[in-house]
């Protein structure tokens, strides 16, 4: 069994959502806002970038996680989750989600996935024990690989 995670386990609350049949959670302090799908300004650059949303004066890229998670590309998303990252290059990203499941306050444990069940998707960095179920811990800073963050930041700045 992996050790407890140092970064996200400190969070008091976790935001729970689903992409396809997969149940995720992320520390609540990563959440900036949840938007309706109509907020998406489509501008497909590559497969994973669906477009952008505007948050104040900031343009935030919206990503489809399905390719990174090796899931079939889903249809229209049910919502757009705008997340704060720890990266100074790309401080905010948004991801398309299929369902909001609510906020979990009674998180008992956050830990790494057992080595045998580790995911090749870098953004899945652990498992969250929420009441009677387990949810995959999503780390927003790892959704976009470091080498691609610069490209997206440039695209965002170009308007």
């Amino acid at each position, binding site marked *: 069994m992996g050790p407890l995670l140092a970064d996200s386990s400190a969070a008091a609350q976790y935001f729970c959502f689903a992409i396809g049949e997969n149940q995720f959670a992320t520390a609540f302090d990563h959440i900036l806002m949840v938007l309706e799908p109509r907020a998406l300004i489509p501008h497909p650059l590559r497969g994973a970038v669906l477009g952008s949303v505007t948050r104040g004066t900031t343009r935030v890229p919206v990503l489809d996680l399905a390719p990174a998670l090796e899931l079939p590309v889903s249809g229209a998303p049910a919502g757009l989750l705008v997340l704060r990252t720890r990266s100074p290059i790309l401080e905010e990203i948004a991801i398309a989600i299929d369902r909001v499941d609510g906020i979990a306050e009674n998180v008992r444990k956050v830990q790494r996935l057992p080595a045998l*069940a580790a995911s090749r998707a870098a953004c899945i960095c652990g498992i969250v024990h929420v009441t009677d179920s387990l*949810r995959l811990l999503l780390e927003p800073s790892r959704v976009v690989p470091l080498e691609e963050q610069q490209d997206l930041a440039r695209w965002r700045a170009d308007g």
Partner: protein
Amino acid sequence: MQSISAETTPESYRQYLTFEVGGENCGLLLSEVQEVVEYHPITRVPAAAPFVLGVFNLRGTVVPVLDLAGRLGLTARPVGLRSCFLVLREDARERASAVALLCDAVEQVRETAAEDLQEPPSLGTRIPPRLLTAVVNADGRILHLLDMSSLLQLTREGTPRKVAPEPPA
């Protein structure tokens, strides 16, 4: 088929837990099984190693679940009332953590004499012989005794963890 010599199975009798998976009758050394747990929903892990169905919570421990039918080259049956997880002992086969196998139904604990163990036939079984330690004629049916080391080996090899660079501070 040829009997396996007593050198490979020093005890004259061994106990095996027998179970059904993908329509085949299989067995594991009872000493390798920690417990049998009733099926309950699994948390899927996207982009995990081949044959890893996901994880489940066993009294606070996150346990990976392997698709045993798929690993054996069999067609998985729909989950039913008798479906269950065989949780393998943590210290068996030098594994660092517990592992569970999804099977269709647990049958019985069977005591088998060393002289009844036969080499897996190279032809005629749906399960690849390299994944078996032996077969036994069990009341007219073939009981496939599984080799856990081989079963888990490919799954472990198929776990290329892609480590992302740490985000800049």
